[in-house]
């Protein structure tokens, strides 16, 4: 790993791009798990005897 403080501008730009991509990937994953949970739980809630 190179020292971020000594990186040149293109390297910093590339690092920033990678970080944003990872962040977006994680956000999408969290949203997917949330939506899937709601969909799967939703069906069970509707089928539950009141």
């Amino acid at each position, binding site marked *: 790993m190179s020292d971020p403080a000594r990186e040149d501008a*293109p390297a910093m730009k590339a690092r920033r791009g990678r970080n944003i991509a990872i962040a977006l990937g994680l956000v999408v994953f969290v949203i997917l798990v949330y939506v899937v949970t709601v*969909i*799967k739980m939703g069906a069970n809630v509707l089928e539950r005897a009141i």
Partner: protein
Amino acid sequence: MAMSEALSPPKVAARWQDYLQLLKPRVMSLVVFTALTGLVCAGQPIHPVLGAVAILCIAVGAGASASLNMWYDADIDAKMRRTRGRPVPSGKVQGADALTLGVVLSLFSVMLMGMALNWFSAGLLAFTIVFYAVVYTMWLKRWTAQNIVIGGLAGALPPVIGWAAVTGTAPANAWLLCAIIFMWTPPHFWALSLYTSEDYAKAGVPMMPVVKGAASTRKQILIYSLLLIPVCIAPAFTGLGGLAYLAVSGLGGLVFLLLAWRLFRSQAGDAADPRNDDGLYDVRAGARDARNLFAFSILYLSLLFATLLVEHLMGLQPLELFR
């Protein structure tokens, strides 16, 4: 183990696009297409979001296995014109990073598939990733001329995974879709390898033309083509395909056989002139027949799956006469 560790560290900072390249987006799009066909042909209702998640998991799983393949095969890729520009051999991405990306995406895709759909389809996805990354990449590819015959199973499984994601089962019709891709793979890749065999020979990969010669490869392409066409037509008789599918698979099959016969009678792959260092997809004298079959094989498979997809999406009935 002559792998990416032997390569020099990255010369330039890796961009996110370089990591995307590790996932082989073009292959991923084909996987999505065939998996979607399996998912739709399953014929049972599925929540659209869950269907999209299933396709996403299969696509990411395919990308993960591609990343693992590029990590392990960096030494081979560096020697071939077709692959030396890939992120690891070109020095843009470290081998260890490709390995990490592959492992992480494999775990994420299989876990999400299991939680969102069912664990049977998740198991099939895990098997596919391991089969491609370990059985094909680490073993078959460097060991036997039958590498793409057996290894083709990994590329043939996505429609079964798509089907299993909906139903939790894998009936005979799902495996028929798998069989079509499995039988299609050898004539498709051997036609390509007939005019790229020097590249494979240079890298020490025992592709069929390198090991058995061009004449034997052309004969085996013809044999596999003869076996492929009945398998492609079969869905019209098992309640999977309709009249349109029967027409497309039958007529396309005749063209496929004609091109395979022409290739068999040609000189494709024989004594390529090493002075002509032309591009990968340029055609050397005598290799035009190999190029034609390679190109048509892609069209044929695409048409087969597209026809099935359209028939099922439009609610067209399969051929009841033959059920």
